[in-house]
């Protein structure tokens, strides 16, 4: 659990960050290089961007492939299958990600936490 937490909570390289688009090729200028940053962006990003990425499965792919958190990716997949849109999507996505973040941080060993802050 500690290993997966550290992977999920780390900051990734610029090339591996999540870049928010509103449609094909239309980049908003907002990006997230960690789950913490991703949560902050969910609050304010254009709702069109959230809908665009949810239905392309981009959130699920980034969270499972780059951050290595399949559990969170599965929870987001449910939003997609339920076709959640608009502010309901923003609220539910924020709730799911913030809950998972709290959970991961609480299981994070102090030693690992210290290593992460050095990184």
């Amino acid at each position, binding site marked *: 659990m500690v290993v997966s937490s550290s992977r999920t909570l780390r900051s990734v390289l*610029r090339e591996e960050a999540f870049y928010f688009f509103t449609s094909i090729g239309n*980049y908003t200028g907002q990006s997230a290089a960690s789950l913490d940053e991703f949560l902050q962006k969910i609050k304010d990003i254009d709702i069109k961007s959230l809908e665009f990425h949810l239905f392309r499965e981009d959130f699920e792919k980034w969270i499972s492939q780059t951050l290595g958190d399949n559990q969170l990716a599965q929870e987001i997949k449910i939003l997609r299958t339920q076709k959640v849109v608009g502010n309901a999507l923003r609220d539910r996505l924020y709730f799911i990600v913030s809950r998972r973040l709290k959970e991961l941080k609480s299981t994070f060993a102090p030693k690992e936490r210290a290593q992460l802050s050095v990184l």
Partner: protein
Amino acid sequence: MKSKGQEVILDDLDRQILRFLQANAKQTYTEIGSKLKVAHSTVYDRIQKMEENGIIKKYEVIVDREKVGIPLITAQMNITTDPKETENIAKKLTNFSQVLEVSTSFSEELVILAEVVAKDQAELHSFIAKSIAPLPGVLRIRTAIVTKKYKEERFSLPFRENGLRKKE
């Protein structure tokens, strides 16, 4: 052809030769010479000089992508940048084979205009998301996918200096 410092001044014959080459670069010196009523050796000399002076940059083949079964989509990207990074970004863009043209423009903001091709929309998006958006200094990207082109021509040299060429 005369030189004036860095500038090269073309005479009417040079310009006419260029116009023929721009219409069809495969024409022989003899063919061009007979149309202009000058010796093929004159045409050869003029072309050699224009190549040496960099007036003729290169000869290229324009392939009809649809006929060879390579259906590509074309998109026009408008990239808003941090002014400090504009030149770096423009130079980096020139290194991608998917990017056909790169230029800078200033209207309300300093932007880079780039034409890009991809196999399909998924590949276009992936290229922009993975290769362009992460470049330091990229602030925003607006992309328009071209649905139909009504005209596509290269710059054609006017017949006379300072004069517009009349349509034939």
